[in-house]
């Protein structure tokens, strides 16, 4: 008499994870047996690696720097999932309140949600303390939240920029719980390219227009070389009176503005050798 092959219903999976077909999985869950887990030594590490596979690749270039006349924040606007460009018009600067800006790099949802949450807590601070929150305290609140979710898969690398009674301030906060103050930061896959241009052109006492132009140029160069950065450059300027958005230019346009002739750019013009 032929007996039905019920080996797939057994709880201890004898077959390798890759050989499971969907039908088996369904029958297993219906019958109440446990989900066939891979036989690995370190389940936590396995799960972490699995998460890394499915997480979409968020490329970005963002930068911020303090100079004599305030803070400049410049960002690109491209979102990508692997090689697919999902959007060219992402708002990567989050306006927390009229004196505080946050940038977005890493997981878009994480950045947006937690920075809006930060905005709420800043408002409550204002109401409870009768004064605007300092950038130092605002960045600390965000960093505390990030640290409390440490290891749970949040992905966020942000710069909190603003102006408070102690002057201009710029703090880098990320989902590892790191929080550092500084004069110049660039975050994202294109940050290395942006640093090159930024560090080269930076002067503490440069004029406002020069600073804005530097921020814009740094993002442009990063979008040129980094495949997952692009779209439009947005530049914000923060002073003691709050922030204003000063630029919003398409990087394609910027390319032809900076290099009106093909020969001017090192990549173009020469015939192949």
């Amino acid at each position: 008499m032929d007996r039905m092959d019920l080996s797939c219903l057994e709880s201890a999976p004898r077959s390798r994870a890759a050989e499971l077909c969907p039908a088996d999985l369904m029958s297993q869950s219906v019958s109440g047996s446990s989900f066939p887990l891979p036989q690995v030594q370190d389940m936590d590490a396995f799960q972490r690696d699995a998460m890394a596979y499915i997480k979409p690749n968020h490329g970005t270039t963002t930068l911020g720097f303090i100079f004599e006349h305030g803070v400049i924040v410049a960002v690109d606007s491209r979102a990508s999932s692997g090689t697919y460009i999902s959007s060219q018009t992402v708002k990567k600067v989050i306006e927390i309140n009229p004196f505080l800006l946050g940038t977005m790099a890493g997981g878009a949802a994480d950045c947006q949600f937690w920075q809006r949450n930060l905005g709420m807590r800043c408002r409550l601070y204002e109401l409870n303390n009768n004064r605007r929150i300092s950038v130092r305290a605002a960045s600390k609140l965000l960093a505390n939240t990030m640290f409390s979710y440490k290891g749970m898969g949040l992905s966020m690398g942000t710069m909190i920029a603003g102006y408070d009674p102690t002057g201009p301030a710029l703090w880098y906060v990320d989902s590892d719980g790191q929080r550092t103050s500084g004069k110049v930061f660039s975050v994202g896959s294109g940050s290395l390219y942006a640093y090159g241009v930024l560090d080269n052109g930076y002067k503490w006492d440069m004029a406002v227009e020069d600073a804005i132009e530097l921020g814009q140029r740094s993002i442009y160069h990063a979008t040129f070389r980094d495949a997952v950065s692009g779209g439009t450059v947005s530049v914000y300027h923060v002073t003691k009176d709050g922030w204003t958005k000063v630029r919003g230019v398409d990087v394609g346009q910027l390319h032809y503005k900076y290099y009106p002739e093909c020969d001017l750019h090192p990549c173009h013009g020469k015939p192949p050798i």
Partner: protein
Amino acid sequence: MGSRYDRSLVVFSPDGHLFQVEYAIEAVRKGFLVVGVRGNDSIVLGVERKATAKLQDPASVRKIVAIDEQICLGFAGLQADARMLINRARIEAQSYRLTLDEPITVEYLTKYIAGVQQKYTQSGGARPFGISTLVAGFDTAGKPQLYQTDPSGTFSAWKANAIGRNSKTVREFLEKGWKETSGRDTIKACMRALTEAVEAGSKNMEIAVVGPQGGMQILPDSEVDALVEEINADKAAADAARRASASGQ
């Protein structure tokens, strides 16, 4: 029989009183006097020195304590209650520092202390704290601040105030002669107010000065006595001037 039960904390009296809270305020009125005067560049807290028993170590009886680097607190009333509240205030100040990477403001801390005191006016089985506090410190803009809390959980800012026994007399004195002072004059103003209810001299009073650089400086006895001399000299000079102008039409 009915009126006895009105004294429970969680029950209002028919005419809107919380008797337990009012009795707690009475307990404060029996405590030792603390005077606080806010100057332009400092806050001075003056305390009536308790007559300590011969064998008691006076240094262990502290009426003005530091909450954090930049905030000090003086209390009047039940010392044991004060100890508990001071502990909570200290923890809150550090927790604030940890969460916000900034020193706690005087107002926020006072609001917290008052909040704790209020909580104990609204729960059954617990009695209110039998203390009023004077919280002194500097805000981030560098301005000196003086706040007072009481057992009911209310708090407010003051230019000068007194709590404890004879506080009413002292407060009236402060209101009469009030003017903005700085430096040494603030200390003398506080001592003069204290002298309304307490005999002058380092034996009977302790003076603490809270300055903008943070921390609280308890004046040594010699300093206090020197200031008493100065105040007496000022008074004598003022009296002489008055007599001279009165006699000389």
